[in-house]
């Protein structure tokens, strides 16, 4: 316990200072102003995007400071954070997760695969892009997208 305490004291704050918001395309966040709860759905990703999402919510980028929070159930969520091309086995669960989310809700497609299936396009197990299955509101491009980009997109949703 003492070593942990010392570590807390010596480490201090690791979160990067919040970058200024690029407020050019800021649409009105509406109901979701200041608070966005997110359910992450891996529809068939290679786990590259997951690593970046994990670090976006880690101490350094700390997306939680903008009011975004990961939750355990789509019933609690406002946003579905979908990664990867949609595979055959995840098509139905993705639809169900969308159906289970209370309105108003947004879908954020993370990564190039969610946009155009990336290198998996045409694969025998791939059904299509996220947009083919559920209506997508925000797309975050990149393979994988950097945490900065993910955080910026989430900030547009929360308006903070």
């Amino acid at each position, binding site marked *: 316990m003492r070593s942990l305490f010392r570590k807390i004291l010596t480490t201090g704050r*690791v979160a990067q200072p919040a970058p200024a918001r690029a407020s050019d395309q800021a649409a009105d966040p509406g109901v979701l*102003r200041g608070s966005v709860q997110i359910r992450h759905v891996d529809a068939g990703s290679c786990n590259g995007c997951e690593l970046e999402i994990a670090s976006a919510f880690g*101490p350094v980028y700390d997306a939680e400071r903008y*009011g975004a*929070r990961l939750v355990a159930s789509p019933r609690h969520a406002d946003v579905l954070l979908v990664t990867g091309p949609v595979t055959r086995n995840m098509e139905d669960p993705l639809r169900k997760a969308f159906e289970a*989310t*209370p309105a108003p809700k947004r879908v954020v497609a993370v990564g190039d695969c969610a946009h155009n299936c990336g290198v998996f396009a045409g694969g025998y197990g791939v059904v299509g892009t996220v947009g083919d299955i559920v209506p997508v509101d925000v797309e975050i491009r990149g393979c994988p997208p950097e945490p900065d980009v993910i955080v910026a997109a989430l900030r547009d949703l929360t308006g903070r």
Partner: protein
Amino acid sequence: MTPGAMAGVLLQVVLLIAVAPYVVGVMRQVRARLEGRAGAGIGQPWRDLRKQLAKEAISPEGSSWVFTAAPVVLLASTLVIAAVGPFISTASPLDRVADLFAVVALLLLGTVALALAGLDTGTAFGGMGASREITVAALAEPTILLVGFALSARVDSSNLAAIVDRIQDNPAQVLSPASVLAAVALAVVVVAEAGRLPVDNPSTHLELTMIHEAMVLEYSGRDLATIELAAALRLTVLLGLWANLFLPWGVATSASPSALGIGAAVFVGKVAILAVALATAEVFMAKLRLFRVPELLAGSFLFGVLAVSSSFFLA
């Protein structure tokens, strides 16, 4: 019941409702800072509540009126406690309505309502959460009542205001063995009832380790807002009760506006300090395995027995 006293009760309820989400916010913020994060700010739980209130509520198919009524019962039972407890004043006209045992029973009523709702969803996780929550509540009950026994034995009354008044009159009582032992025992129970570490992890995303969260997995929108407000209010009420039973200074003893004002300010201060302390302690703790929790509660039961015995023999 005089208008002044009524205003005091109303002030207490409104203050508790206003403060409760901030208590959760403070705890999350303290935790975030100790983890090197920036944190979402102490107002985040209020922002979450405001948003959830404007979202649609979903009832799972096959569930009944129990599912819709449970959040209301949970919050209503907590509000009754917020109205009758001596949080900012012991001169409350409602003190005679419910004593310590009634308050404990009302807390349990809320737990039961939510557990029934968890079972009503018919999901494996709902049932699991209900089963675990009820097990923990059932095993925490003896400790609470023994602590109540220890506290009320020398006062000769189980009415909360009487207990608080008595300690205010005899400050040396705070350091009596009975009081210290009871404080330790009740602290463990407060942690267990409020679903904090090491009994339950309120921020877990892993269903298999959940207790409280597993029961509310099906709730959304305004139902969820009700439950989250109730959970925050229960935490505040428990912290406030603990603070006023063992450190009662500053609690108003009359219903005059100045006394109520001081009482309110002191109450907010005490709860804030306790919240910071609890959050700091949580950083150093891991969640206990579910089947170690009964051992923890048995330990607190032992403290309760010791508290009662010492109130008999050493007072």
